[in-house]
């Protein structure tokens, strides 16, 4: 079985008033084993 997620997220670096980046980045690699609840991206 397979699960596919399709979603919108910020793409360009833009800063909030506090200077934080809002760009979405995946924090996994192809072939990684993930467990439910672990972050795929931020």
């Amino acid at each position, binding site marked *: 079985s*397979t*699960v596919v*997620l399709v979603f919108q*997220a910020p793409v360009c*670096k*833009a800063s909030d008033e506090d200077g934080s980046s809002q760009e979405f980045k995946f924090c996994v690699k192809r072939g990684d084993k993930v467990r439910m*609840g*672990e*972050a795929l991206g931020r």
Partner: protein
Amino acid sequence: SSSSEGNAFFVPGATVATILMLGVLHARRLYEDKKMEEAREKGIEIEFSPDKKATFLRLMPLRTISRIWGNVTSVEYPIWLRPYIYKAWARAFHSNLEEAALPLDQYASLRDFFVRTLKEGSRPIDSDPHSLASPVDGTILRFGELKPGTMIEQVKGASYSAASLLGARSFLSIAQDDAIGEIDELENTSNGASKKSWWRVSLASPKVRDTTSVRPMKGVFYCVIYLKPGDYHRVHSPVNWQVFIRRHFPGQLYPVNERARRTIKNLYVENERVVLEGQWEEGFMALAAIGATNIGSIELAIEPELRTNRPQKLLHSEPPKERVYEPEGVGVVLKKGDEVAAFNMG
């Protein structure tokens, strides 16, 4: 006497031949898997290459086989036998039995054991409010950004569009709210009707600037996760979101293992699947749960009455079966980590 000796010789001979044949096939499979693993480690892309097995699979009544498998695995075992069977399964498919919520002898059948829940705290949910959590245990196959005109790659040389995966039905009110007038309305070329949908708007013009704030431009991303037979087979919510609509696409039930991915074109688009679509804080969110031969039916926690993998004569002849969740525009509110669905055997 000579006749009984002959039979005694014949039966073990046939059995040994069968075992040998299965052993050779298994060894060949292991060898191919190892070669594939080595190629992947070297960064060599697996390419699409249809083979005879794929052609043969297309002729097989896989949905029927899947339902028979479901019936076989629903058979209740004697209590004393259950731990032995589930331990054997766990050894074969590398499952962690210590995580199971119940003692092994309380799972009446393999089917029950397969969709077992986990002990409290086995899967801590990432606490970052801006993270996207994995909805399942599994292996990351693909991920990335869907730029205009691009498709999701199954393997090198075989791709499918997000539209064909999620369905083409419109999501009018949400799209209109989110588009903020900056997106040209797409014309439905097939029937001339004007239709907007979340993903169509997003894919056609993925970098949408919200004019009302300094929020960044939005893109459309995807992530494909494969669940092996030994993995925990329940699906959870990746973020806080509202599910507006469910689509059920009755379809084939091809296997979705690595070999199938590189030999069966449009695998994910042809297989039976359930798609949930809605909205999270960054916009559109869709989750597609795709079945396979052994894991043929999908159960929704938010819609327990939904039945999939039912006997059907004609597949792909009708549009997907949809359900808009009430109240319209609000839908079903899910928190990150909430259980959404489960994959069942057969």
